[in-house]
């Protein structure tokens, strides 16, 4: 028995969900739901326990990094990619979030999906997702990380398209996969460049080799910068950042537990994880850092504006997710990696909760997702309301809920940004703050439209009922986490407040992070926190005013700002733009130019033309074989004259021909 059995057999953690997936996928079709539940929840639950034990052993061992090679997957020349897993503090956070939140959502899903067809298929996919996500966060090299990366994309494809009879669902799944592939294109090239430069894709070796290299200067497109920008392109695809965010809102076609797990809590944060994992490279590429910060900040703001006017409850949350992911990138981009990861974690709690609670609402409403047909639900589904309100307070940034702490530290870091000068930092901070205002507004708009005000549905058709316990229990646990999760990184100005989280991640991000708020900056931190709270409060108040107090004001506002409103409602027409600029022309060129013109008419036309030409020549020459003796005689004479002519008059050929005859 090894000293640290779970670490030595770390592969068990990801393998358990894979087994669950295989068992349910192959045999589940004939099983009752109960057995499927056991397999699905059992495998992820055991995986969670295994992860906990591994984390415990990791701390007990006191190592900075645990790393183990299990088997070689690809090896050619000097390239090796292995199933090597590693664990450090960053992995610990990710593994616990993935297995913990994942497990809760599995439990929730047994209630939510209870009456759906394809139950076994759903859990098989969901377990498959857990497997790939764990591979992603445990991987010790970029290639294995890419396995998880593509694998979660696959699971996402399968789960978005779970209701494959609906064309919109199938379309959304395909779109998600393809847009992600566009990002992966960059990710792959980034890997190739790193391998070309450093000769390895293993995290430990790669970062060790890159360590003595001088950092690229600002504005200089050196190896680090290009590699980081390429990796970030992959991250933009997976984490739905501008301009590749378009798949995530559509991904809401999937069942709600999927939206919670994959499209809010875990998979979409993979891009942030990759940037944080590659912090060593990014910190040497200031240009790339600035790009990350700007893209993150722009996405946060852009998505929040769209979220203001959406009426589908899940769409609001989807744009909110895009926006919050933008915050995480903003944090990474200004060098506050631990703040980014911290927001990743708290976001996993409250956003998963929001989606699950929204699922509970949808469940209660018998499938209705349009908030305009809800209203006044707070009394009927009390627990759902309370938990969802908790999450809303958290995401809006009210103290002492989790989102307050994480968002606050991001905004502080943005304010103190060093890349590209102080003014850039102020702009980033400004947009971040406005986004916080918008966030508070659209989240409370959601709450008010859904739970308060007049009842806008027909009670005869909709039988509103509270969800079963197996759906409510995860909600409550997540609500608890959304409240207390933030205290891991309490700001320094609070009595006894210490950023435990940053301290915890210190071994990973050591030497990279921009120094946080020190004693002198405490007052600044306090000021910024105060501003943030006021902003959040203002956002909530505006929502209250417009949607509860004076609903007619909202309508008037919509009328007076109609062009802006329509643009937002149609998401800035980005999908239409992509369709007109990329999809349609590509299909047209492929069909008309490449296939019909080049392939069929051009190449094949030539080939068949040659064949026809040969036939035609043969056909023509056939007439010389007339069988007529006299015409043959004429040909003989003509031939003889021709030969003689060549012999005597051809400038060079004559002698040769005579020579040949001799």
């Amino acid at each position, binding site marked *: 028995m090894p000293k640290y059995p779970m670490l030595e057999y770390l592969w068990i953690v990801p393998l358990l969900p894979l087994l669950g997936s295989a068992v349910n996928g192959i045999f589940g079709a004939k099983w009752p739901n109960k057995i499927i539940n056991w397999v699905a929840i059992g495998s992820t639950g055991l995986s969670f326990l295994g992860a906990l034990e591994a984390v415990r052993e990791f701390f007990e061992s006191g190592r900075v990094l645990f790393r183990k090679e299990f088997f*070689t*997957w*690809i*090896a*050619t*020349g*000097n*390239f090796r990619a292995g199933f090597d897993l590693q664990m450090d503090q960053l992995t610990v956070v990710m593994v616990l979030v993935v297995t913990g939140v994942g497990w809760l959502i599995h439990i929730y899903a047994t209630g939510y999906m209870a009456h759906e067809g394809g139950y076994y298929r759903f859990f098989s996919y969901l377990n498959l997702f857990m497997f790939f996500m764990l591979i992603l966060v445990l991987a010790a090299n970029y*290639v294995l990380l*890419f*396995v998880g990366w*593509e*694998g979660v994309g*696959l699971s996402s*494809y399968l789960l978005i*398209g779970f209701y*494959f*009879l609906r*064309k919109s669902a*199938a*379309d959304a799944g*395909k779109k998600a*996969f*393809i847009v992600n*592939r*566009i990002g*992966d*294109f960059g990710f*792959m*090239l980034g*890997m*190739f*460049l790193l*391998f*070309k*430069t*450093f*000769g*390895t894709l293993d995290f430990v070796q790669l970062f060790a*080799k890159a360590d*003595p*290299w*001088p950092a*690229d*200067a600002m504005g200089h497109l*050196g*190896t680090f910068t290009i590699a980081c920008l390429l990796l970030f392109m992959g991250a933009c695809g997976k984490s739905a950042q501008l301009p590749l965010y378009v798949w995530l809102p559509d991904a809401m076609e999937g069942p709600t537990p999927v939206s919670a797990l994959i499209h809010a809590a875990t998979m979409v944060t993979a891009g942030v994880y990759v940037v944080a994992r590659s912090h060593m490279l990014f910190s040497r590429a200031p240009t790339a850092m600035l790009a990350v910060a700007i893209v993150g900040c722009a996405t946060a703001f852009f998505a929040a504006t769209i979220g203001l006017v959406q009426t589908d409850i899940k769409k609001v949350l989807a744009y909110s997710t895009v926006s919050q992911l933008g915050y995480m990138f903003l944090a990474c981009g200004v060098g506050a990696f631990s703040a980014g990861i911290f927001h990743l974690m708290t976001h996993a709690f409250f956003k998963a909760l929001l989606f699950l609670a929204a699922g509970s609402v949808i469940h209660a409403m018998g499938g209705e997702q349009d908030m305009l047909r809800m209203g006044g639900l707070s009394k009927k589904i009390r627990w759902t309301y309370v938990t969802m309100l908790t999450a809303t307070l958290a995401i809006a940034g009210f103290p002492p809920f989790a989102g307050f702490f994480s968002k606050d530290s991001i905004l502080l870091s943005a304010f103190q940004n060093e890349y590209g000068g102080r003014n850039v930092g102020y702009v980033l901070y400004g947009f971040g703050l406005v986004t916080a205002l918008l966030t508070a507004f659209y989240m409370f708009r959601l709450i008010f439209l859904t739970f308060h005000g007049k009842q806008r549905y027909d009670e005869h058709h909709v039988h509103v009922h509270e969800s079963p316990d197996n759906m409510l229990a995860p909600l409550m646990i997540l609500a608890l986490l959304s409240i207390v999760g933030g205290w891991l990184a309490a700001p320094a100005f609070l009595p006894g407040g210490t950023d435990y989280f940053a301290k915890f991640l210190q071994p990973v991000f050591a030497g990279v992070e921009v120094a946080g708020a020190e004693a002198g900056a405490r007052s600044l931190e306090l000021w910024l926190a105060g501003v943030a709270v006021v902003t959040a409060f203002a956002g909530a108040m505006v929502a209250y005013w417009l949607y509860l107090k004076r609903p007619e004001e909202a309508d008037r506002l919509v009328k007076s700002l109609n062009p802006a409103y329509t643009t937002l409602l149609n998401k800035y027409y980005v999908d239409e733009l992509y369709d007109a600029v990329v999809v349609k022309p*590509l*299909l047209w*060129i*492929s*069909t008309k130019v*490449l*296939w019909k013109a*080049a*392939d069929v008419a051009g*190449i*094949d036309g030539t*080939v068949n033309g040659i*064949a026809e030409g040969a036939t035609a020549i043969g056909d023509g020459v056939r007439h010389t074989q007339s069988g007529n003796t006299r015409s043959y005689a004429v040909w003989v004479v003509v031939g003889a004259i021709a030969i003689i002519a060549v012999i005597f008059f051809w400038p060079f050929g004559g002698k040769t021909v005579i020579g040949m005859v001799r």
Partner: protein
Amino acid sequence: MLPGGHLLSVLIFFPAVGALALLLLRGDDHKYIRIIALIVSLAEFLFSLLMIRAVPVGRTGYHLEEYARWIDQPPIHYHLGVDGISLFLVILTTFLTPISILASWKSIEHRVKEFFVMLLVLELGVVGVFLSLDLFLFFLFWEVMLIPMAFLIGIWGHERRVYAAVKFVLYTMAGSILMLVGIIWLYNATGTFDLPTVEALLHTPLSQGGLELPPRTEMLLFLAFFLAFAIKVPLFPLHTWLPDAHVEAPTAGSVMLAGVLLKMGTYGMIRFSLPLFPEASRRAARWVAALAIIGIIYGALVAMVQPNLKKLVAYSSVSHLGFVVLGIFAFHNISMQGAVYQMLAHGISTGTLFLLVGMLHDRRHTFEINEYGGLATPMPKLAAFFLFVALSSLGLPMLNGFVGEYLVLLGTYQRHWGWASWAALGVILSACYLLWSYQRVFFGEITQEKNRILPDVSPREKWILATMAIVTLWMGMGSTFITARTAAAAQSVIEAVEPQRPYEAATPASAAPQAKLDSPGAAKAISSERLGIR
């Protein structure tokens, strides 16, 4: 006699024995015909596995060599041998033959005997091509294989079968005629058809009795061989026979065509073009690579808009084989290994795609995508298999397509990042055409009533598909079993063209990149020093 027994001869001629046995049966004795064909091909497969033992990991050169005098003047001899590359191509062939036989179990109803005879003769020809070490013998098998394939298309094919068969034969012949000229030229210059001897002579300086080709001659010879191979691959723009041949061929024909026949072209490039004409290969590399990259993107785009499912898969082959050619002509050992791997992976995954398309055709007698739609409802298992294979074809990690594609791109990038970047677009496009067509065939509501009652996979089909799926997964996970054995052979081929320097990761001590990279000349010097680019 060289050591190694007669395993290779057995492998070549055992299918012929089986074909003879079939010829002795009465034509309507369908049951026994199928069973005998299956047993013969399975036995052949097991025999071929014996070769693995004989090819040691890490050793270059040919193994299990056989040599017998055949014709004294001109000196055409029976010379066989196997190395790491041909080893797996032969196994791929012997593996796909029983699969093809099983796939034709029900769908071939007339001239059953002749059909299976043709399949076995085809196997003979293909195995012969991969194992021949004599140029003339190689050419002989190259032509032999043409006949059964043409018949498979022309007799058991679909509506335009004769057109497709004639096109296939003429296209291929046009290339192989030039190759014959090249072979005879080499014989005139060297006095032998023996491949290892010719190769050795070409690598020996003139002063020591070797043969040095003038650049122009070498280029012409290179082109003579290359054209034959490029048509077979098929490399853009010589690919137009392929969609027709595939669409018209019966399922088994398509499986063999895509699975192994196309690989004869890329195999030829590895075995002949590069080692025999290294200088010309180097000079041609950029043009070949350009065509390969065009093929990757063009094939994928054209595949995307095909209304015919089988044509779609056929065009996807153009795209996938583009990766193989690119990997070969990037002259990097990783990309070369990737190319070899991609050849095998494509054989499995595209072969399976053709099997699946054939199964759909068995049920509905059409390849038109818009005749389908919503098939996941009546046939969930077939839909699951199809998705699995489509994913392997689009290069999902842990399935077989990824390893080859990734290595090709990775290796190519080390030498020519621009080539790799363009080719990597194929990764996006393959997802587009596969998932889009998959959606149109399997997702959504059922659009045509007659599709509602289609049966799901039969036990026979299930076993075929499960076997393919297991191989797909195994190749995706356990690639080192294969790459360890192909490494030495691939390396020696590439070294004949371009010496591979052991890779040294750049260290700042020697490079000090910031300072030197400021002048473009210095950057080039550094990169050429590091990567061994001329």
